[in-house]
């Protein structure tokens, strides 16, 4: 240790020497630390691996998490949980709040009971056929439960989890072996030459631009032989490494989605046994997939995925989710329910093709940000946990052999294990599975079926990336140009997004709030998300080139912002309100201006930041 850590705060930047520093505490880091911690101490309590930075002590492992507590800002999931069960062979779901064994799985096609959905001709014809022959299709509640689903989609023997509760449970198993520090965002990796040598924590006591104010406290430098980056798909450190060290040839991360969800206390009398899993497609727009997972005690996680292939330039997740909830098939379960928690997160849906460099000198990447999500099976937690396990096994091997964390050694000890694992095999099968969605929903579904049934040999080919249509192009035939211009003027002068007015105009009925489950977006933030933003940190969402925003007429960043934290500004540059941001990172991949040279995805930089959701039930 090179600093006296009992000294009072100072305005000089301090340095601390650790052995391993982890960025982010999600399932991947959970898998890493759980596996590693079992190797750190001998049965008699003496260090099994002695700390190089603090001789005589066990390995000094630090983990810094941006959100205010462990388990905040994540989501519910259904997972096969193969890797989790391998780590915890005797896992008892009843000991983890909200966990349940998967009991049943349904895939449901939702008809459009409103008539406002933008359905292609093939779907409209299908809907007509189903309505003519409801008995033949066993259509009930404006929906058809598919009698068969492909095996790759099943989560047999899996677990329904609240990842928030699961993360907290995992953290409680790590008592005394690793230091976990929530509420401490990592600003950046420390890079010297071609190596990562640790991380710099975020400065505190700054203005919105990061300039020091009274009480300035520079973020500490934590130097470590190995930096483990598990900060998710929109993490600032992972993206910094992509910029600094480049990405593999063929790397692509153009496919994204935002998952927005609620945790709902279902009304009494609802017959949904714990572990029931429902996936939907077809409504409110054909591109929108929905999910409902039943937890114990009449609690359910439910919500929608809004993918980047949904081409509406005024796409919104919140109203879309409300429209989805009000579908008769789902509303029969939800009517009378009560919101317990709410949240959203970005999903990297490029999977294996979004894989960055997995290791370099002094660092390794794990989890969703390392391209482990399987976009065919719709599985990410199982894979993320496994990446952490594999890295921990490699780290132990290297430390026991006394070998340094060079790129060559990490390639051998970690990357090779990944290449030989089921993550790689299944990831390659899934690599092109979603390409068809760039051509539409039907080709997309066909592509998934093809890829799944041929083990990835066949798929519907991708289409070159096209810019999003303008509002006028997208709503042609539904809303005339004069109305669009009027809506734009009225909404922007009021400082609000366009999507509600556009949806009203396009025929979507107004959502009648009941104050319990159906409520305004801001009430969901306050009641379900309890969004917090401690003062004294720099803004983490930055509009890089203001002149680009000033000319932009398709501000998707405002429309899809999960917390209404990005709003129209008087000069044309959107305003950002950190007190509403839930750190979902949607703005990162929802800039219409991918030509902006200063950022790889658009004109918005998504940096390290503090605060966000304050619920551990998600």
């Amino acid at each position: 240790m090179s600093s006296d850590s009992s000294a009072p705060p100072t305005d000089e930047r301090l340095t601390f020497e650790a052995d391993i520093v982890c960025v982010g505490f999600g399932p991947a880091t959970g898998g890493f630390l759980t596996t590693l911690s079992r190797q750190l101490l001998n049965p008699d309590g003496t260090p099994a691996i002695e700390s190089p930075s603090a001789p005589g002590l066990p390995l000094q492992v630090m983990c810094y998490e941006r959100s205010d507590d462990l388990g905040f800002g994540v989501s519910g999931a259904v997972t096969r949980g193969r890797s989790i069960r391998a780590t915890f062979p005797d896992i008892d779901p009843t000991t983890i709040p909200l966990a349940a064994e998967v009991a049943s799985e349904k895939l449901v096609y939702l008809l459009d009971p409103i008539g406002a959905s933008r359905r292609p001709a093939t779907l409209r014809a299908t809907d007509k056929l189903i309505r003519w022959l409801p008995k033949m299709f066993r259509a009930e509640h404006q929906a058809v439960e598919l009698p068969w689903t492909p095996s790759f989609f099943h989560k047999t023997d899996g677990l329904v989890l609240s990842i928030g509760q699961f993360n907290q449970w995992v953290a409680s198993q790590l008592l005394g072996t690793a230091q976990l520090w929530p509420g401490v965002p990592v600003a950046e990796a420390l890079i010297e030459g071609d190596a990562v040598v640790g991380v710099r924590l975020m400065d505190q006591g700054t203005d919105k631009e990061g300039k020091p104010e009274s009480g300035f406290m520079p973020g500490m430098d934590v130097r470590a032989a190995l930096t483990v980056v598990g900060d998710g798909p929109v993490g600032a450190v992972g993206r910094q490494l992509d910029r600094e060290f480049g990405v593999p040839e063929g790397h692509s991360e153009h496919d994204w989605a935002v998952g927005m969800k609620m945790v709902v206390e279902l009304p009494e009398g609802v017959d949904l046994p714990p572990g029931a899993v429902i996936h939907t497609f077809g409504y409110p727009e054909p591109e929108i997939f929905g999910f409902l997972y039943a937890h114990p005690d009449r609690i359910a996680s439910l919500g929608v995925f809004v993918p980047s292939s949904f081409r509406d330039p005024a796409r919104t997740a919140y109203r879309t989710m409300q429209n989805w909830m009000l579908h008769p098939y789902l509303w029969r379960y939800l009517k009378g329910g009560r919101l317990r928690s709410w949240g959203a997160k970005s999903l990297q849906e490029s999977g294996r093709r979004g894989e960055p460099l997995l290791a370099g000198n002094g660092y390794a990447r794990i989890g969703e940000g390392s391209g482990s999500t399987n976009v065919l099976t719709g599985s990410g937690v199982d894979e993320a946990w496994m990446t952490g396990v594999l890295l921990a096994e490699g780290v132990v091997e290297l430390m026991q052999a006394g070998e340094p964390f060079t790129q060559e050694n990490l390639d051998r000890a970690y990357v090779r294990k990944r290449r030989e694992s089921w993550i790689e095999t299944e990831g390659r099968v899934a690599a092109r599975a979603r390409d068809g969605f760039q051509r539409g929903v039907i080709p997309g579904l066909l592509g998934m079926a093809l890829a799944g049934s041929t083990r990835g040999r066949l798929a519907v080919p991708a289409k070159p990336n096209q810019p999003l249509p303008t509002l006028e192009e997208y709503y042609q035939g539904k809303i005339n140009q004069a109305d669009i211009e009027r809506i734009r003027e009225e909404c922007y002068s009021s400082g609000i997004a366009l999507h509600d007015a556009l949806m009203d105009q396009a025929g979507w009925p107004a959502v009648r709030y009941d104050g319990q489950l159906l409520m305004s977006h801001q009430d969901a933030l306050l009641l379900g998300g309890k969004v917090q933003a401690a003062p004294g940190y720099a803004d983490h969402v930055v509009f890089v080139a203001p002149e680009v925003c000033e000319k932009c007429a398709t501000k998707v960043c405002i429309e899809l912002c999960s917390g209404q934290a990005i709003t129209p500004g008087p000069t044309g540059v959107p305003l950002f309100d950190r007190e509403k941001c839930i750190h979902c990172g949607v703005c990162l991949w929802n800039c219409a201006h991918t030509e902006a040279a200063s950022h790889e995805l658009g004109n918005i930089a998504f940096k390290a930041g503090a605060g966000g959701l304050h619920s551990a039930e998600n």
Partner: protein
Amino acid sequence: MPLSFHIVVCGSLVPDPLQTLEVSVGPAGPGLKNELMMPAVLDPWASHALYEAAHLAAQFPGSKVWLVSLSPKAKLQQVMMTVAQKVPFELIALDGSASGFTDATETALALSEAIQSIPGLDRSKLLLFGGWESASRGAGVTLQIVGEQLGLLDQFQGVDELTVDADGSLRVLERLEGGQQQVSVCEGPPALLGWATGSLPEPRNNPQIGMANMRTVMPALQRAKPTATTITDFSSITLPEQRRTTRIVKDWSADQVAEDIVAWLGSPPQNP
């Protein structure tokens, strides 16, 4: 000999006040619905006491702060990840219920025993701090009983400010009913101060302080003594009716906000 203090802060856990709380009766007695799932925080009243203790200790070199907490060990570990980053202290952990329905006398007896067992604690320097109220124990008597068990005759409740005079005497600003305050002076330690809100903001997360505290927090958690307390029952409970109207307004003055709230309070309830 320079003046210094041994400050013992009593503080337990409560569910994060941001959560929606609902009383329910389970097999183990009364509790909160889904309490296990809720994030916990150090009781906000006790937090103020802890920050004031650290502030006082920093002014008088040689002083030391202990935090004594009767809480479920796993939850306490989680809360310590954040609290330990705030100010320097040494943790004394008792593994037991932090429920608002535990018997206050039993809780106080367990805490006073733990305080009396602190090695090196100098009674002539002792300041017993805590919240004058609790976010889960509205009776607010636990700290008073701890003080009685320790034989502390000088007790102050609803404290907003403590000043140490040059002769070592303590000048205490206390809250009284009706919005009034009184200033009392006592000769010095030992004394009990049940804090109201104090005047210090919540300190920033400081990983440096966190790492220093963790040297004692982890061992304290590992040796936390299991402590049983009786869960009392309740005959009835009534929650106040809630009205909620959410608007986000950023650029109003305090007067405008106050006027709007007054107008809202006087307006008839709206149907959702």
